[in-house]
């Protein structure tokens, strides 16, 4: 399996080629090189997946970890060293497939979407850099390698969100994304430090192995503020994951990140980077489950709250990309809840499997939604729902594929979302009724806001477009990825996922729990019906309802004032109450005291200066006085 190294190395090579030599290439050539390179990586990933799942991965009925490549990169102490390597296990192989597929689609799609943009080559170079970082992240053999690629992912995301760097809103969005996730990464880093201090290793295999025995035994008895050290460490590590995966209250960067080009949102902020947090928790799942079960419970509740919170906001948004952004937050929270309610081993670990399954299906239909939205934006040159409507006549392919994605995310059988969502609901029902209820409500809300979006774009009032701006279907290079992803959204659900991915590597059987499925589908249909009633023909009803909701609607529209809170924290607290006083303190007090030393010296000099006034007779007089004083003193003795 050594060839898997190429999957990671190829995008890096592409980055250097396109980054250093891109400006000398034709934009089209750069784009094609990037796409072909990513295509090769995708092909290699499929080969790796097939060989792993069906040939080499399974030993005695259990999927084992394969490390085909590992090299020591930086040695800290004898025990602690950062290795760079490739770890193949069911989830990392699954992620390789997801990432390369979505990335390839986005590469292809961007050939059309970004055509004629300034910095086309730079765009492709950055896409390659992002793919490299994300691939490196999922195949990390140890937590520090993960942290390294975690940071790289953050930076490439920063550069891509700020791709339109002349636009102030894009610049501030990219800055916000980076700083919020950096803050979360601080937690991640401290968590790594604590964990490695107690266990003396960064290695995933050592940490997870043997029911996380290493972590449990080394942190036994140690606690801080009444909570065990293991819990602290794992909670801090989860903080990193919460930052990247946009869990409340660290979600604030994701909606703004929609300032980036739409294909970037599809790749980074829907399918790959934002699930890094879920992946992180899944990767360390045995440690969470055995050493820090309280943190796992917390993850479940944080996830449930975020899912509901984001779904409510998504209903009110009018910018189509923001609706999708909040829907992403909500869906990722779903995955987090699934991990939070999961047990370990076989059917107990249903939640774990369901979470990964949802990650897998979500990647495709959410990428499809974003690319479809991109296609719409490309056609009408606006992000606002108000500028759209009735587009089904102009853009048939986009319309159909978008509908498939909506059905999928709403959880209507037989589309892929139904299967994964059903598993999550089933897992939560067995674990915690409250969480189940929240997720169930969210499922309804999801169906409602997705179809609100769908009807507002493709149906609604019979809007007319003047001849010059008449919307048109996107070129094949853009619609092809849509069709492929639609195909995946239809088919991905039929994967026998529990046969491939499970919490302990041993395949198990799942079956659809019909009561849960019926409940889920019923609420989804209810949501869709409501949306149809309200939005299919347009009309005044939604505005009336919004007015009736009053304050609550306004709060949701303003995203429950989280952005205001963020501005308050950064502008007021950090800038005005911390940094400005510190800077003043430095200038006035610290620097002032140094200047003060100089001032004292000068004053002292001024004080003694009159003695040296240049008047000879004064000197003589003082001299005589002195001599007289000495004489008198001598006489008195």
């Amino acid at each position, binding site marked *: 399996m050594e060839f898997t190294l190429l999957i990671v190395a190829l995008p890096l090579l592409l980055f250097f080629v396109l980054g250093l030599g891109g400006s000398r290439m034709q934009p089209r050539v750069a784009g094609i090189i990037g796409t072909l390179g990513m295509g090769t990586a995708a092909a290699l990933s499929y080969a790796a997946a097939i060989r792993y799942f069906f040939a080499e991965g399974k030993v005695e009925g259990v999927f084992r970890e394969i490390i085909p490549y590992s090299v020591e990169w930086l040695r800290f102490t004898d025990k602690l060293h950062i290795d760079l390597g490739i770890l193949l296990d069911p989830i990392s192989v699954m992620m390789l497939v997801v990432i390369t597929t979505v990335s390839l689609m986005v590469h292809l799609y961007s050939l059309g979407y970004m055509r004629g943009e300034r910095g086309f080559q730079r765009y492709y170079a950055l896409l390659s850099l992002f793919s490299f970082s994300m691939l490196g992240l999922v195949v990390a053999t140890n937590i520090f390698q993960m942290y390294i690629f975690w940071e790289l992912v953050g930076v490439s995301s*920063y550069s891509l969100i700020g791709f339109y760097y*002349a636009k102030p809103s894009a610049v501030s969005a990219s800055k916000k994304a980076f700083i919020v996730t950096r803050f979360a990464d601080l937690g991640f880093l401290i968590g790594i430090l604590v964990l490695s201090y107690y266990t003396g290793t960064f290695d995933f295999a050592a940490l997870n192995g043997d029911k996380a025995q290493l972590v449990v035994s080394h942190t036994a008895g140690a606690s801080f503020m009444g909570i065990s050290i293991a819990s602290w460490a794992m909670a801090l590590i989860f903080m990193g994951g919460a930052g990247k995966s946009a869990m409340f209250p660290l979600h604030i960067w994701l909606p703004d990140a929609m300032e980036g080009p739409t294909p970037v949102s599809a790749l980074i902020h829907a399918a790959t980077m934002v699930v890094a947090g879920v992946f992180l928790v899944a990767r360390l799942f045995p440690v969470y489950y055995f050493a820090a079960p309280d943190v796992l419970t917390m993850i479940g509740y944080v996830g449930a709250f975020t899912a509901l919170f984001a779904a409510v906001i998504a209903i009110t948004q009018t910018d189509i990309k923001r609706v999708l952004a909040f829907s992403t937050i909500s869906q990722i929270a779903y995955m987090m809840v699934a991990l939070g309610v999961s047990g370990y081993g076989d059917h107990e670990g249903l939640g774990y499997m369901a979470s990964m399954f949802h990650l897998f299906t979500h990647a495709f239909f959410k990428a499809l939604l974003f690319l479809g939205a991109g296609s719409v934006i490309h056609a009408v040159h606006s992000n606002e729902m108000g500028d759209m409507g009735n587009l089904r006549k102009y853009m048939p392919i986009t319309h159909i594929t978008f509908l498939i994605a909506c059905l999928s995310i709403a959880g209507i059988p037989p589309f892929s979302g139904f299967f994964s969502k059903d598993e999550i609901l089933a897992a939560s029902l067995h674990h915690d009724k409250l969480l189940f209820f929240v997720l169930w409500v969210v499922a309804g809300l999801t169906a409602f806001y997705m179809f609100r979006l769908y009807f507002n774009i493709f149906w609604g009032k019979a809007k007319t477009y003047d001849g010059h701006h008449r919307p048109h279907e996107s070129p094949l290079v853009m619609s092809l990825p849509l069709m492929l992803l639609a195909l995946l959204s239809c088919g991905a659900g039929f994967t026998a996922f529990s046969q491939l991915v499970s919490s302990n590597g041993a395949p198990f059987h799942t079956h659809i729990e019909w009561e849960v499925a019926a409940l889920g589908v019923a609420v989804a249909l209810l949501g869709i019906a409501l949306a149809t009633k309200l939005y299919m023909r347009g009309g005044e009803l939604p505005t009336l309802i919004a007015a009736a909701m009053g304050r609550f609607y306004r709060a949701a529209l303003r995203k429950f004032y989280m952005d205001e809170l963020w501005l308050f924290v950064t502008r007021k607290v*950090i800038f005005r109450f911390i940094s400005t006083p510190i*800077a003043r303190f430095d200038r006035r007090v610290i620097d002032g005291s140094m200047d003060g030393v100089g001032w004292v010296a000068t004053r002292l000099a001024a004080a003694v200066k009159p003695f040296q006034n240049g008047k000879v007779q004064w000197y003589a007089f003082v001299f005589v006085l002195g001599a007289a004083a000495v004489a008198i003193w001598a006489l008195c003795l």
Partner: protein
Amino acid sequence: MNILSFFVIVPLAMLLLLFAVRNVAQIRTIMVVGASALVGLAAVLAVVFLQQRAASPEAMLLVADTVWYPSLNIHYAVGVDGISVLMLALAAIIVFTGVFSSWNMPREYFMWYCLLSIGVFGFFISIDLFTMFLFYEVALIPMYLLIGVWGTGRKEYSAMKLTLMLMAGSAFLLVGILGIYFTTGGSSMNMLELAKAHIPILHQYWIFPATFLGFGVLGALFPFHTWSPDGHASAPTAVSMLHAGVLMKLGGYGCFRVAISLMPEAAHELAWIFLILTGISVVYGALSAVVQTDLKYINAYSSVSHCGLVLFAILMLNQTAMTGAVMQMLSHGLMTALFFALIGLIYGRTHTRDIREMGGLMKIMPFASVCYVIAGLASLGLPGLSGFVAEMTVFVGAFQHSDTFHRVLTIAATCSIVATAVYILRTIGKILYGPVHNEHHLHLTDATWYERVSAVGLIIFITLMGMFPSVVSDIISQSLEPIIARLM
């Protein structure tokens, strides 16, 4: 003749040759050839050093000793270990790139520049305390003239402040050195000899603070860092580069070479006081940088934060953290030099350093802007560039300390990485991105070839160190072993 002495002889020869020439082309030829020779010399030294080290277990290699003033036991003694070799290489790289960044300067400027280089190189090769102190002073004095004459803004004030504060530090240092000399019996100033002799613990209690403070002033130890913002803001480009890039490292290197390794007991006992101060430096510098509006001030405060981390890591007194400290010195030297080179470039064109008056430079000077972004990313610790490996080594090493106090301080210090991200991104967002504020800026040109040499040279080393950190970290941690053995 010992290869190390060439590090002093080459700049000296450059200085003397400069007296002989008048025209610009000749001056530049001398400087470029000389600086390239220094870089070459550093490369040769690295090779020779690695060969010798493979053969010999001695702590210091290439040792040479010439008696200079017998009655006071003052020798001209040179020798290097892995750390000094790396510092010499850093100094050579920055002197080299600095020449390109001060392309249009007059002859007298370059003369002082050479003198400064003599001091810097001499400091790193010395193993005799007195020679070391002598070169230290040689490095300080030219700074006054370079800033005072060729600087900008409040240059006389800044030059005076910088010189006086550093001189005050070196007064402490001199007292400390004399203390070491006399308490060990007054027979030798050679550090190899002194390491064998034992300084009585009672004396260590005053000598350690004196020497640490003396060097610490140069390493921007809180609260004696205030020369740094003003000094850097007023200094001409290459002087800022050399100053922040190399001269501030003299402080860290000295603390480690003299204060810690000669007085291990006091270091253990008194480290906590200085740890608190350096911990404050790290966070405080970063937070102060957040609200600055002058590019050079931002960078100066960032240097306070990063150099604070160097001293912080040294005081952790374990191998990993100290390895990290040296890596941080190298990394900070390279990236801060890059920053100052680019700030000089931008300032030379826009005639302002106020970030509120700039915007959209990415469109106008893409090359310089991309370099600036790279420098910024290195500074905020992007993996693959030098800052990340250095900071992580420091943090991991410091967190391995068995004392809870030290670990809590480490966590406090890690918080600086968020503040660093804030000020770096704020600066980049304000000056490089966004629309162009000032239409006069639209006609500015991108970097000239000599400015490109300077920036690209530094970026190459930043990337190399970030990609292949184990080359550097192995050399350092091996050289640290004798010192660690003494500390234990």
